[in-house]
């Protein structure tokens, strides 16, 4: 397989995974208005748990280092476990930060949780092998089914990613275009009004926070099963805001916009700048990239807050209104 094709397949895999991330963050912020400033922590927890669940038992003094679990779980089970782990972390964070009707308290909580989890994962070597991280995560189905070389494995893994991404898309769309999604958007617009109409704000925000985190955890699981390794340098602060920038650029509240954002920011921008080298210290390009992402976020909310593809307007077809009979099956929103 040629190097270019190999590279393009890698990009396609990351494109699919970043779309899943963006849909999840969109459920947090775009739909519900929850400020999650540590989205990547949910990705990381999903990745770590999926990784150590898929790996074999840690060998004392072995090459793979120390880690928990080591259950040898097969593919569809390990990412599910990653999603569950991220959901549990979200429930804990939400319990602390979502009970008050103040969006800044949750934002503060996420910033603090992000740093603490990073610190603990790095220092507590017994969890996920500390700063060195886990490595040797098996590729899904490869040893049991495909027996492919690392290069050849690209195509089957891309198919796996596309299947997972398709399911994630369907779930995200169902949530967005349902009474549930409508209630989340109402909470985003004015939580007092939603409460005055009998909606339990805490329950809705909590469930949206957990669901968004599951998207992160599953995406993280795909990442770790693709790369095969994961350590704290892979989920720095910048990673969270790459997803934020993707969401804001694509168009908050719009799942199609998330696909575009995932293409424009993490795939196109980050990859295009990877090949630029400028003289200076080793982190210079990385720093400039961070500046650009930060500036991009500010400029988008300043000059085009709705993003490239704005949230779509739901228009209802009146001919589908039933005369108190339940005959019509497709009275839901159509695109306007």
């Amino acid at each position, binding site marked *: 397989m040629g190097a270019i094709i190999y590279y393009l397949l890698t990009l396609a895999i990351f494109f699919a995974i970043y779309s899943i991330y963006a849909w999840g963050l969109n459920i947090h912020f775009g739909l519900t208005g929850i*400020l999650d400033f540590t989205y990547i922590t949910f990705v990381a927890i999903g990745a770590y748990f999926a990784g150590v669940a898929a790996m074999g038992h840690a060998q004392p003094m072995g090459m793979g280092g120390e880690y928990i679990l080591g259950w040898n779980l097969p593919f569809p089970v390990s990412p599910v476990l990653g999603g569950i782990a991220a959901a549990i972390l979200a429930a804990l964070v939400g319990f602390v930060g979502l009970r008050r009707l103040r969006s800044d308290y949750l934002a503060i909580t996420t910033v603090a949780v992000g740093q603490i989890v990073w610190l603990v994962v790095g220092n507590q070597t017994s969890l996920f092998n500390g700063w060195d991280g886990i490595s040797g995560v098996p590729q899904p189905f490869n040893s049991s089914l495909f027996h492919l070389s690392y290069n050849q494995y690209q195509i089957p893994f891309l198919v796996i990613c596309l299947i997972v991404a398709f399911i994630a898309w369907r779930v995200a769309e169902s949530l967005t275009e349902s009474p549930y999604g409508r209630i989340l958007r109402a909470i985003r617009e004015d939580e007092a009004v939603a409460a005055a109409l009998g909606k339990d704000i805490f329950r809705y925000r909590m469930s949206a926070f957990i669901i968004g985190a599951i998207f992160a955890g599953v995406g993280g699981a795909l990442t770790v099963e693709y790369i095969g390794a994961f350590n704290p340098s892979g989920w720095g602060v910048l990673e969270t*805001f790459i997803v934020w920038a993707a969401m804001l650029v694509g168009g908050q509240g719009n799942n199609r916009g998330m696909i575009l954002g995932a293409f424009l920011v993490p795939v196109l921008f980050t990859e295009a700048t990877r090949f630029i080298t400028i003289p200076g210290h080793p982190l210079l390009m990385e720093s400039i990239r*961070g*500046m650009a992402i930060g*500036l991009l976020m500010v400029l988008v909310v300043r000059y085009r807050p709705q993003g490239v593809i704005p949230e779509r307007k739901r228009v209802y077809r009146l001919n589908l209104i039933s005369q108190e009979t339940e005959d019509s099956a497709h009275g839901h929103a159509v695109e306007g």
Partner: protein
Amino acid sequence: MSLSMVWLGVGFGLITASVLALSSVGLTLQFGVTNFVNFAYGEFLTIGAYLAFVLNMGLHLNIWVSMFAAGILTAVVAWLFNIIVIEPFTRRKAPMIILLVVTIGMDLFLMNGVQALFGPEFKQYNDPSGSILHVGGLLFTVQQLWIIGIAAAAMVAVHTLLKYSKLGKAMRAMSDSSELALISGIPTRRITQYVWLLSGFLGGLSGVVLAINVNNFTPALGSEFLFVIFAAVIMGGIGRPYGAMLGALIIGVAMEVSAMFFDSSYKTVVAFAILVLMLLFRPQGILPSRGRV
């Protein structure tokens, strides 16, 4: 547990509390007047620390002179930050949630900007004052006594400002209700600008003393300290400067005393635990609720 270790921890705690008091008062004053959390505040600390580094190492100024000058320069940075970045949003009454996104975006921008300019490696000031003094059974270096003295002086100055100056009274009025303040003829835009100057000055100062206290620092200095500042601010009741001073004292001492008994890399976990407990049980802060400030 030995009592002397607790006592030693209290000594270190007073220094951390001093650093924390400067920074959390700077953050909480700005919140009180503008009513949104500045997630880029950690970068005011970082910018202050690196400005002092340039003055101290590049221009060979005395560290304390450098500190004061860096505080003033950071005040100007904060003032510009408000005018260039924040005001376009507040002018059109952007919702708070958008302002928070803007400040966190700027946090990323400024942190990486400092890193682009100075590189990721550790930096250190040139400061000869190393002799050790005994004060009431505690051991301090001359540097550390300076830090405590500077923080104490700054707190007295903030108190005097709030209590006796026209600016301080206007700030308190805006903190209670910015609409009422506007109606009663207070020039709210100008007061807001003064508050950003003050917030930047205190942030810059605290960045320098933080850098002195931890000995060597990187561009992550401020952003890593930010949630410790949040812990102190929320403990004292967000927007309340005297509360922030108290919160800083409690959290500073708690962190350093715990570091005497546990792995010191975990001392921020103590601040985190306090933050979580406050959010769960007393999000309005430990002081009895009355009018803010």
